[in-house]
């Protein structure tokens, strides 16, 4: 398995752990204080911004850990090198993931237009962003296996 495939699998796992952990922290561990605010736009603004910061920091840390572990196991340098094949696969898989997110973004407007509570919109939007990112990584693995 190539480093890019390993990185994509690692990315999926960390995304699931980070997102799952953050949702669990917010809606299970601190349910008493957060659940009553679920209709409040300010709550969703705080939730989204905090999630973005937490995700960026934890992703950077996890990528550093991954690079260290990989360097120890494979004893190879310059593993992050990307050539034209890698870049093309990355562009195609990111495009597919972004298509899913855009579709989710448009769908998230439907409950608002129908007069449903605002949390439907945020749940659909954030879920499509998460699933879109995960699908992008899955597509990456698919393209590496099948070719482009």
């Amino acid at each position, binding site marked *: 398995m190539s480093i*890019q495939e390993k990185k994509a699998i690692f990315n999926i796992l960390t995304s699931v752990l980070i997102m799952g952990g953050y949702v669990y922290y917010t809606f299970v561990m601190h349910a008493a204080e957060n659940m009553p605010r679920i209709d409040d736009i300010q709550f969703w603004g705080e939730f989204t911004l905090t999630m973005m910061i937490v995700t960026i920091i934890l992703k950077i840390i996890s990528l550093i850990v991954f690079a260290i572990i990989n360097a120890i196991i494979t004893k190879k340098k310059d593993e992050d*090198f990307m*050539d*034209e*094949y*890698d870049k093309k696969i990355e562009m195609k898989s990111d495009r597919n993931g972004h298509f899913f997110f855009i579709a989710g973004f448009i769908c998230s407007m439907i409950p608002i237009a129908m007069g449903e509570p605002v949390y439907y919109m945020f749940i659909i939007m954030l879920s499509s962003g998460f699933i879109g990112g995960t699908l992008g990584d899955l597509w990456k693995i698919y393209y*590496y296996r*099948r*070719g*482009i």
Partner: protein
Amino acid sequence: MGQTHINNNIRTLRFHKGEMTQQTLADEVGVTRQTIVAIEKGKYSPTLELAFRIAGIFEVPLTEIFTYNSAEDKFKKRNQNLR
């Protein structure tokens, strides 16, 4: 997706070049070994730039390495009225 319409004989040329490894060829042309594997298997058509670099390593014309299978390429001709 998957198989391209460009065939190549890189494997044979590597063999005639003293059983050159995929890694050596990859290093010489500035790509990863995985990319050479994908090209050899016909899973990826390289850019012209990379194709010329590969041809340069084997010191043969481009057409001796890559051949185009027009019979399998089911591309659609553009409507001539659009010109």
